[in-house]
């Protein structure tokens, strides 16, 4: 007898329907799977045999043929287990109801028949809905994740037996929709700017960076607190909207980094790949074209600690996502596009030993060493980093002071306000933040008066700034003006913006 059950597979973030067809014929007992199944998929044969038996069903000792259609796309992963098992029960006549036809089955089976968690449920369900499917059967482990999608009819079960009983007419509880707002309020970041003592310049610069969506690099000796500062950045970013959360969750779901107890990403991601990271791990790729760190940091922060230590090749590949805010991962068989709209926060030492310019420590690096260390960051890459600041270690006194530091919530009020102003300003343009402004926008929104021109001129002469910094200074000055609620860019704004061009200053020879 022939059975046909629906499941879904993923290509990047997009899902497409899979027909799991099973035919059981008389003949020598065998289990044949066709339709470009990968190893993990093919191995389902053993899982299904045990799961079916251990759930109290009979495993047909006949010639079994399975086709995963369409037959020309590669099928990855164990997510078709449930669909195949259901198809087997139907084909072998152990399940007689016909209502399975409306459902999409998603789940991996363990040997005792328990349904296990699979990756990518959120993007699958969203794609399936767009394709007109509404009913889903999935594992309890995936229930939380699925429950955030509106307008679906989903049922989750603990094991194969439960699924079979449900299809045979037993009643089951439909998944209740979870509220994103509620989960968001329940989960915080665990860090706060109030815990960072001193570092007023760095905090101010980060506030500006978040307000205008600028990338930032912090230069300072080891132990200055660069990592701590970076970790606090998401706490002053705007609250994630539901749409953003869904977008982030989709990527994390595919990568398998989603917390199944929450089921959705409620906080802005903070990713800090180690500096030995490979290019595919950073950008995305591998034979399965998995999302990389840049995509996992979508709508959040990508933190590159000790930036010059990353391979030059890895750093250069960041240029395209920084510009386009998406990455296309091309492999021989397919090209997948992942979002990569992140804020880059980087840190570095002033020199290889870290003590250059320190008041108390002696730097042991030669000038060439410092030179080659700094030149690891190419001009085009630095061009995409608007703020460059110096961070230095906090003295003992500062640790001890009772001065109350501003909390993240308070800073966030200001950044939110600045973002609001930008949204209003750019409502007719296709951009959201000051950092995204191009030449045309600069002309329109970043006019400075004669006094400002004179100030810039003076800065170039006195500080030996390089000319490629001008647009950066203007953008940052625009953000500073927004933070103050000022329509025009005043001289004070410009002056502060110039302060944040540390790497443009020439180091002493």
């Amino acid at each position, binding site marked *: 007898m022939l059975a046909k059950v629906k499941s879904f597979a993923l290509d990047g973030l997009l899902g497409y329907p899979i027909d799991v067809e099973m035919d059981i014929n008389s003949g020598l007992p065998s289990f044949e799977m066709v339709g470009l199944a990968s190893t993990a998929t093919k191995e389902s044969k053993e899982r299904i045999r045990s799961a079916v038996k251990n759930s109290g069903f009979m495993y047909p000792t006949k010639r079994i043929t399975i086709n995963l259609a369409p037959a020309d796309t590669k099928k990855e992963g164990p997510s078709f287990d449930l669909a195949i098992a259901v198809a087997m029960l139907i084909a072998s006549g152990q399940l007689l109801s016909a209502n399975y036809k409306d459902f999409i089955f998603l789940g991996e089976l363990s040997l005792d028949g328990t349904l296990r968690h699979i990756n990518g449920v959120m993007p699958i369900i969203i794609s399936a809905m767009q394709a007109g499917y509404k009913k889903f059967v999935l594992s309890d482990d995936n229930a939380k994740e699925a429950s955030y999608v509106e307008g679906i009819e989903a049922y989750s079960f603990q094991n194969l037996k439960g699924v079979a009983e449900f299809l045979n007419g037993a009643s089951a509880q439909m998944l209740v929709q979870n509220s994103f707002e509620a989960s968001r309020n329940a989960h915080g970041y665990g860090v706060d700017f109030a815990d960072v003592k*001193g*570092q*007023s*310049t760095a*905090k*101010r610069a980060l506030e500006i960076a978040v307000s205008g969506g600028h990338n930032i690099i912090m230069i300072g*000796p080891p132990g200055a607190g660069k990592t701590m500062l970076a970790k606090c950045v998401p706490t002053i970013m705007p609250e994630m909207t539901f749409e953003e959360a869904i977008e982030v969750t989709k990527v994390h779901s595919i990568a398998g980094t989603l917390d199944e107890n929450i089921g959705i990403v409620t906080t802005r991601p903070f990713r800090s790949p180690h500096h030995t990271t490979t290019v595919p791990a950073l950008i995305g790729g591998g034979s399965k074209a998995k999302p990389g760190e840049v995509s996992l940091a979508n709508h959040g922060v990508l933190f590159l600690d000790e930036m010059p230590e990353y391979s030059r090749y890895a750093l250069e590949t960041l240029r395209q996502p920084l510009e386009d805010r998406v990455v296309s991962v091309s492999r021989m068989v397919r090209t997948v596009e992942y979002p990569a709209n992140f804020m880059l926060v980087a840190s570095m030492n*002033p020199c290889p030993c870290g003590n*250059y*310019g*320190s*008041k108390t420590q002696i730097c042991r690096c*030669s*000038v*060439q060493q410092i*030179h080659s260390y700094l030149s690891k960051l190419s001009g085009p890459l630095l061009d995409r980093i608007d703020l460059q600041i*110096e*961070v*230095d270690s906090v*003295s003992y006194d*500062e640790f001890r002071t009772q001065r109350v530091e501003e909390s993240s919530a308070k800073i966030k009020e200001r950044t939110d306000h600045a973002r609001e102003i930008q949204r209003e300003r750019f409502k007719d343009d296709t951009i959201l933040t000051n950092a995204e402004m191009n030449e045309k926008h600069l002309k329109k929104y970043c006019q400075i008066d004669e006094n400002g021109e004179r*100030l810039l001129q*003076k*800065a170039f002469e*006195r*500080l030996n700034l390089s000319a490629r910094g001008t647009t950066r200074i203007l953008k940052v000055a625009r953000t*500073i003006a927004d*933070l103050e609620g000022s329509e025009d860019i005043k*001289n*004070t*704004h410009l*002056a*502060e913006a*110039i*302060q944040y061009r540390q790497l443009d200053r020439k180091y*002493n*020879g």
Partner: protein
Amino acid sequence: MAKFDLTKSALIALSMLEISNKKKEKILSCVNEPSELIANPKKCKEILLKQTTDAVYIEFLSFVERMEAIANRLQNEDVEVITLFDENYPNNLRDIIEAPIVLYCKGNTALLDKRAIAVVGTRRPTRYGQKITEEFTREFARADLVVVSGFARGSDSIAHRVCVEENCPTIAVFGSGLNVCYPAENRELLSGILSHGGLIISEYALDVKPLSYHFPDRNRIISGLSEGVFLAEASEKSGSLITIGCATEQGREIFVVPGNINSPASEGSNQVLRSMQGALVLTAEDVLSGLGVYAKKPVQEQAIQLNFIEQQLVDSLYEGDLHFEELLNIAKCSASELSSMLMNMELCGVIEKLAGNYFVLCK
């Protein structure tokens, strides 16, 4: 087509030999006229073989043979050769022991006759050394002294750079041939020196590599060209102490700034002060009056109007450099206001930002 006369050819060929300066002087003292070395081959052979080896003699002959090509190359590269027997050879240098036989010069050779002061120091200056070198050099340059230094990393480069910034000529004495930019990261500085009416000189042929034993020899030219030598900072084994030694031998004035007795970077210069108390200087005016030069009146800078907080900041900076956080405590304003205030003051030349978010008053 360029062609050198016999004297010049002989001196160039002689200078290119890889023998000590002492030997070269000896050879020169054996002839009445340097041109004899070429005009009288028999005598030349006799002298060279007596003083040196066969190989050196053969080398000498090959240099003489190739002299036209050498002359052409020098002309193409815009390099002027001044020999000890030329009239425009700097008088200061002529008198020193083992004066270089030839000087390869590129740039403004008129500088060689001007009053000059050497600025030397460590290759790894501390913040203190950097600041002192910068300040003193600036005053020297403004007083129309030509600053001579060795183009090395650290203090030397700072001295040259300050001159370029002040748009004043400076002389860089190379320890390599003029076509070898050593250290390579100073390439930009090199073109800056030349484009601001400066001069680079060397006693080595164009492509000679910067070998370690060239540098002590080069130091005698630095001090030889100058009326005085200024030293801001030197560690115990610093090469600049060799320059001080040369300067003493040559009877030049020596000016040394005292350093922190705890700082290893000042050990050498403090030692010099112990043996020569008269060398101690505290201001650039000390140096200038020691040389009998009077500083030009500084151009009256535009008065800068500071507001109340800015004045407070300046007052507290009189005691030394302060960190941004400390200034924040003094100003009692927001970090953003302070940032922009400090930048404005920096642009007006009131203060200066140091590495590590420290700020200091400009002199």
